[in-house]
C-alpha cells in the first residue's frame, strides 16, 4: 500500500516569489484515501525544510491525482532565501471512534510520504523600506539598520546580499555588514569629520547564479549631517585648528553657522547655543529702567554682547535635523569657538568735592524777583524754570583709563529729603523726592568738551518763612563704558557696567536773627560716600550690575508733609 519514496534523487528548482509546480509519479495509493477523495480519516501533509531543520513558509495546493501521478504547486514567499530544501508530501490516517483507517487498524499511521530535493532560487530583487538612522553625523561611527525584504543571508547559496554605498565626497565608509535576516541588515558607517552635507547612495545587491544581479537603492537617500561650523565676520572660527577670537565687551558678536540647509529633504530643525560669560542680546533704557533681553540660543544665528571681560570662553553650537518623514535626529557633534572678551582696562573715577554749601538768591521771572536756594556749589542766575543759571557745581566725577570708546554716566538718586523748620507753627515741614533715575539715561550733566567728567549741583528752594532748611541727598553715580562701533557691522555697541561711586550732600541753611539767610550753610557731609569706587560685577543685581531704577526722580514737594 505504501508507495516508495520518490525522492531525494530528484531535484527540482523553485523560485522565491513564484508559484512552482511539483509532481510525484508512480504512486500506489489506497484509492479510498487518495488526495482527491473524502476518506474521513485521511489527511495530507506537506513541509519545506532546509538542511538545518528550518521550516520555510510556502503556499501549497494539490491539483490532480491519479494512480500514476500526483501534481500540485507551491508558492514561495518573495523573500524566501536561496538554498537547498526538502519538500515532503504525505498522507496520514488518524482514525476516529467510528471511522477506521483504510487499513482497518485503530492506530494512526502514515499511508504514504515522499520527498523531493528542492533548490530554491531566493529573492532576485531586494527592497529597502528604511534606513535607520537616515542621517549620519560627520565625524562619528554609527550603527545602522537597513530594513526591507529579500535580503540574502550568508547561508544563501547565491551568497549574501551585498551592501554598498557611494557619496560624492568619498567621506563615508561601510563596515560590519551583517544580513541578519531576509528583512534586516545591520552595518556600521563611519563618516569623516570634514564631510560636507551630502546624500549617500546606499544599495543592497543580490547576486544570482542564474541571472543578472538585482539591487535596490535606499530612497530617500541617507544624508550626511556635517559637523556644524561657527562663523564670525564671515570666517570659520570653530574646529580643531581654530584660534581664540578676541572681542570687546559691549560690541556685538554676530555669529552664524553652517549648515544652513541640508540635502535630500532634510532640514535644520533645531539649534542650541551654549554661550558662557555674562551676555545679553539687547539693551534698552526706557524711563522705567534698563531692559536686558537674554541671548537667543535656539536659532542657527545669534547676536549678543558680552558685558564683562573674560578669557577662554568656549561658545558651542549643535543642531538637530529632521528627515523627510518628519523624524528628528539630534543632536549634532559640537562646534566650539573660543573667545577672549576684553574690557576697557582699569578705569578709575575720581571725585572732586567743592565743599561748597551756599545760599544763593536766584532770579525768578514772573514777576521778576529773587528766591533763596540752598545749593551744593555756587550757582547764580535764573531760578528753575526761568532759564539757565551758571557757576561752579558742587561735585565733579572724572573717569580715566580708557583709550577708546566713550564713557556713559547714569545717576540714581537713592534718597533726597528737604526739611524746614519754622519760626512759628506746630512742626517742621518735610518733603522729598522719590528715588529714581536722575533726569535721563545717560546722565546729561556731563562736560561737552570733556565727556569724562560728570557733575552735579543740587538746589533746594528755601521756604520764605522757614528758620532752617536742610537737604539730605544721596546718589549713586554709575559709570558705564561704551566701546567704539565695531567695523563692518551696522549693529551698535552698547554700554557695559563698570562701577559706581556713591556720594552725598547734607547741608543746612540757617536764617539769622535779622531774617536773612546766612550765605554759608552748615555742611554736614559732601562728596564720596561709602567704600569709594565700587566695580560692577554680574552678581550685583538682576541686571548684571547695570544701574537699576523703576522711574525718574520725581518731586513730591508740591504737597507739604508734616513730620511726625
Amino acid at each position, binding site marked *: 500500500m505504501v508507495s516508495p519514496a520518490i525522492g531525494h534523487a530528484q531535484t527540482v528548482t523553485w523560485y522565491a516569489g513564484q508559484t512552482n509546480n511539483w509532481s510525484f509519479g508512480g504512486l500506489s495509493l489506497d484509492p479510498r484515501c487518495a488526495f482527491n477523495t473524502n476518506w474521513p480519516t485521511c489527511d495530507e501533509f506537506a513541509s519545506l525544510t532546509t538542511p538545518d531543520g528550518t521550516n520555510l513558509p510556502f503556499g501549497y495546493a494539490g491539483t490532480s491525482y491519479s494512480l500514476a501521478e500526483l501534481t500540485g504547486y507551491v508558492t514561495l514567499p518573495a523573500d524566501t532565501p536561496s538554498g537547498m530544501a526538502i519538500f515532503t508530501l504525505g498522507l496520514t490516517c488518524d482514525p476516529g471512534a467510528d471511522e477506521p483507517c483504510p487499513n482497518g487498524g485503530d492506530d494512526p499511521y502514515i499511508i504514504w510520504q515522499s520527498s523531493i530535493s528542492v533548490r530554491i532560487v531566493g529573492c532576485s530583487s531586494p527592497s529597502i523600506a528604511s534606513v535607520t538612522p537616515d542621517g549620519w553625523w560627520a565625524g562619528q561611527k554609527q550603527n545602522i539598520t537597513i530594513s526591507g525584504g529579500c535580503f540574502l543571508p550568508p547561508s544563501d547559496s547565491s551568497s549574501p546580499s551585498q551592501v554598498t554605498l557611494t557619496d560624492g565626497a568619498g567621506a563615508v565608509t561601510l563596515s560590519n555588514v551583517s544580513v541578519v535576516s531576509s528583512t534586516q541588515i545591520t552595518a556600521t558607517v563611519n563618516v569623516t569629520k570634514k564631510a560636507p552635507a551630502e546624500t549617500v547612495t546606499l544599495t543592497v545587491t543580490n547576486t544570482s547564479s542564474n541571472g543578472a544581479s538585482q539591487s535596490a537603492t535606499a530612497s530617500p537617500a541617507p544624508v550626511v549631517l556635517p559637523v556644524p561650523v561657527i562663523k564670525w565676520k564671515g570666517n570659520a572660527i570653530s574646529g580643531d585648528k581654530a584660534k581664540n577670537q578676541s572681542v570687546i565687551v559691549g560690541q556685538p558678536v554676530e555669529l552664524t553657522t553652517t549648515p544652513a540647509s541640508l540635502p535630500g529633504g532634510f532640514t535644520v530643525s533645531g539649534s542650541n547655543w551654549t554661550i558662557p560669560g555674562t551676555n545679553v542680546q539687547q539693551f534698552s533704557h526706557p*524711563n522705567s529702567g534698563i531692559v536686558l533681553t537674554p541671548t537667543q540660543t535656539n536659532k542657527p544665528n545669534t547676536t549678543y554682547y558680552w558685558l564683562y571681560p573674560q578669557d577662554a570662553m568656549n561658545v558651542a553650537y549643535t543642531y538637530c535635523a529632521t528627515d523627510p518623514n518628519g523624524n528628528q535626529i539630534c543632536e549634532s557633534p559640537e562646534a566650539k569657538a573660543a573667545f577672549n572678551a576684553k574690557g576697557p582696562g582699569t578705569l578709575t573715577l575720581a571725585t572732586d568735592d567743592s565743599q561748597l554749601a551756599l545760599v544763593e538768591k536766584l532770579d525768578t*521771572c514772573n514777576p521778576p524777583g529773587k528766591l533763596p536756594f540752598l545749593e551744593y556749589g555756587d550757582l547764580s542766575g535764573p531760578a528753575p*524754570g526761568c*532759564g*539757565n543759571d551758571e557757576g561752579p557745581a558742587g561735585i565733579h566725577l572724572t573717569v580715566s583709563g580708557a583709550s577708546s570708546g566713550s564713557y556713559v554716566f547714569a545717576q540714581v538718586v537713592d534718597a533726597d529729603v528737604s526739611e524746614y523748620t519754622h519760626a512759628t507753627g506746630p512742626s517742621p515741614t518735610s518733603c522729598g523726592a522719590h528715588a529714581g533715575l536722575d533726569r535721563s539715561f545717560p546722565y546729561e550733566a556731563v562736560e561737552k568738551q570733556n565727556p569724562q567728567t560728570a557733575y552735579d549741583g543740587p538746589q533746594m528752594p528755601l521756604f520764605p518763612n522757614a528758620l532752617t532748611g536742610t537737604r539730605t541727598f544721596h546718589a549713586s553715580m554709575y559709570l558705564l563704558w561704551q566701546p567704539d562701533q565695531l567695523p563692518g557691522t551696522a549693529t551698535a555697541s552698547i554700554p557695559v557696567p563698570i562701577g559706581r561711586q556713591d556720594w552725598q550732600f547734607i547741608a543746612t541753611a540757617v536764617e539769622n536773627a535779622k531774617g536773612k539767610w546766612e550765605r554759608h550753610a552748615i555742611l554736614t557731609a559732601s562728596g564720596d560716600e561709602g567704600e569709594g569706587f565700587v566695580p560692577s560685577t554680574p552678581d550685583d543685581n538682576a541686571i548684571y550690575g547695570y544701574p537699576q531704577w523703576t522711574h525718574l526722580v520725581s518731586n513730591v514737594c508740591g504737597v507739604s508733609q508734616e513730620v511726625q
Partner: protein
Amino acid sequence: MQTYLSSYRVLILSTFVALSAALSAQQARESNVQIKNGVKIYGPIRHPGATSPSFTLSIRGGDDAGTRYEFRVGSMVAITISMTNITNHDIDYSGCSWHLDSSYNYLVWDEDGKPAEKIAFGDPDLSTSSPYWSGISPGKTKTYEADLEQIYKFDRPGRYTVQVSRPDYDYLDENGKPVVIKSNTIMITIFD
C-alpha cells in the same frame, strides 16, 4: 508775600518770557564749562546773533519704537522729544531737572481745546532741582523721554493734544526775545 508766591507757581510755562533784554547782550560761549581762577564755571553755550533757528524739535510716542500713544490712567504718559542741531556749531542743551526738564515747555490741551489740568505743586513750589549744562554737536540729535504725568493730572480718560516748545536763546525776534521753537503736535489717549 502771598501775591509773590502765587506768581511763582506759574514759572513752568513762563520760561522764556523774562530774559529777553539780558540775552541780547550776552557773550558768546563755546563750551558749557569754563575755568576761571582754577574753578570750573558751568553755563549755557551761546552763539548770539543767529539769523535762523538753531534747532528743530519733534515729539513722538514714548516707547522705543515711538508708536505708543495710548496710556492708562495713573501710568506713565511718556513722550520722546528729539532736539536736532541745524547749525554748523555746537548749540546749547542746558536745562534743569525740575519736575520734568524745565528747558522745555510742555503744552497739553484736552478735547475741547482747553489747557489740560496741571498738578498743583504747592505755594510755593518747594521742589528741588539740579541744573545741567550740555550741548549738541552740529547735525546731531538728543532725545529726552518726558513723563507728562509728572506735571499733568491725566486722571480722566480722554484724548489730548500735546506739543513741546523751547526758546532758542541764540535766535531772537525783533524785540530781542528768544524765538520759541515748537514741535509737531501729537494726539494721545488716556483710558481707564
